[in-house]
């Protein structure tokens, strides 16, 4: 494997976020709800009171606990959107795997995109603890009944876009997700601790890749700057509409699913990005961006929320392409799932035969030699790993 070619400087601000993930992980190990206070009561009022009490004490709600219908529905909606974002979010970068500038960058990008598939699987599994089925959530995605984050609908025009996308949108995802490590639903919080630890690799490899470009030729610097110009506002828009206009925020915060408003998180992201942009030697495309000593934060121009709404409604530059690609990947992967199932049936039949044989002594060997083609290759792909088959096939809009 190619050696890591550049030595990137430390990335301002990222250690603090990582430390928070570690701390949330340790808290999960300690958390107890003070719940050993008498036998369970069946009536709804007592159950609701107990739910409130656990949430108020920063305890975790677990799958078999009673929970309000709205809480369950909110979680399913958020988990599904989050999971879909992970797997559809593989596309903009998967695009460049076959054209990465070196074996080293290709290997890193491949590992990153594979992680995103894993994140999707953690989150679908967390959603399934709430009584929904992954297959149904995928149907909802494919039929356009459920969505994913808007930034994924923007194209990656140059190699530098993969770096800018990872630095900015994975960076925004981390700011968004670190507080989710403390969300009130146990399986979600546990999934997020895993996700955030992996996410910081995504963030840093993006920074590293951009850093190589900003320390390269004038043409490379220009390419890096242009990519940052393209991705700054899609990244800012990831935090969603302002709190005042956000439909679900208030309740999600009361239930401690969400822990900060969209505006607070967006501000936190801007504050983290400015020194990182300085270290990279790129300019963030906002003439209003400046330190406000009174607030102790950077002032900035908010994203165009009308554009955000348009992209969410389906009118972004790549919406149709992304969903069509996702659907095709699912359909074209059907044979892999079928092969895995056939392989499982054959193995089951073979071991049933072996059991019968050990009783009767007559070996029929039926099926065992009928071709085992699905055996080795199909295994890893047997989970629904979208993008696997078609990752490189997507047409590039450059």
């Amino acid at each position, binding site marked *: 494997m190619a050696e890591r070619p550049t030595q990137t400087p430390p990335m301002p601000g990222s250690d603090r976020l990582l430390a928070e993930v570690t701390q949330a992980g340790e808290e999960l190990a300690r958390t107890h709800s003070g719940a050993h206070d008498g036998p369970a009561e069946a009536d709804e009022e007592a159950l609701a009171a107990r739910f409130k009490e656990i949430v108020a004490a920063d305890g975790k709600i677990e799958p078999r606990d009673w929970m309000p219908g709205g809480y369950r529905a909110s979680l399913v909606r958020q988990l599904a959107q989050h999971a879909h974002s992970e797997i559809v979010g593989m596309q903009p970068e998967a695009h460049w795997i076959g054209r990465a500038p070196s074996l080293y960058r290709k290997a890193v990008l491949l*590992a990153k995109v594979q992680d995103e598939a894993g994140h999707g699987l953690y989150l679908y599994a967390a959603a399934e603890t709430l009584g929904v089925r992954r297959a149904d959530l995928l149907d909802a995605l494919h039929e356009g009944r459920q969505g994913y984050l808007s930034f994924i609908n923007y194209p990656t025009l140059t190699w530098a876009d993969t770096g800018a996308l990872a630095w900015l949108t994975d960076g925004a995802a981390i700011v968004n997700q670190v507080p989710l490590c403390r969300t009130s639903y146990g399986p979600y919080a546990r999934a997020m601790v895993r996700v955030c630890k992996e996410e910081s690799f995504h963030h840093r490899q993006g920074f590293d890749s951009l850093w190589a470009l900003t320390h390269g030729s004038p043409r490379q610097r220009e390419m890096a700057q242009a990519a940052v110009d393209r991705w700054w506002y899609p990244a800012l828009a990831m935090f969603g509409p302002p709190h005042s206009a956000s439909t679900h925020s208030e309740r999600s915060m009361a239930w401690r699913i969400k822990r900060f408003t969209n505006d607070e998180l967006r501000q936190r992201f801007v504050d983290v990005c400015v020194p990182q942009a300085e270290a990279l030697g790129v300019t963030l495309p906002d003439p209003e961006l400046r330190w406000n000593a009174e607030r102790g934060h950077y002032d900035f121009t908010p994203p165009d929320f009308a554009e955000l709404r348009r992209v969410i409604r389906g009118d972004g530059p790549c919406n149709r392409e992304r969903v069509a690609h996702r659907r095709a990947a699912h359909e074209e992967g059907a044979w892999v*799932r079928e092969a895995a*199932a056939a392989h499982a049936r054959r193995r089951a039949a073979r071991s049933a035969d072996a059991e019968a044989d050990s009783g009767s002594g007559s070996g029929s060997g039926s099926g065992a030699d009928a071709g085992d083609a699905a055996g080795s290759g199909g*295994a890893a792909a047997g989970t629904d790993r979208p993008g696997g088959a078609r990752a490189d096939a997507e047409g590039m809009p450059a």
Partner: protein
Amino acid sequence: MSEHDWPLWEVFVRARRGLAHLHAGSLHAPDAHLALRNARDLFTRRGEGVSLWVVPADAVTASSPDEKDPFFDPAADKPYRHPTFFALPEGVEHL
């Protein structure tokens, strides 16, 4: 067997020698063999484990349908099972 029928498997990972297998999460797979391979790809991409168990989720028997469980009440009124229950006279050590 369609994807809808693939059973759920609970995955347990032993991080290092000397530690117990810990629950890491769950996944779907058509059989135990493929569940193990999927678990390796999903939960140990960074060397997080030296050993994996997969258990059909259906095979797990839980103490009760609720996380708040009268099943554990008998432990609540026996504080003397904890060593800190007993006050020691001044100067007594290694006890």
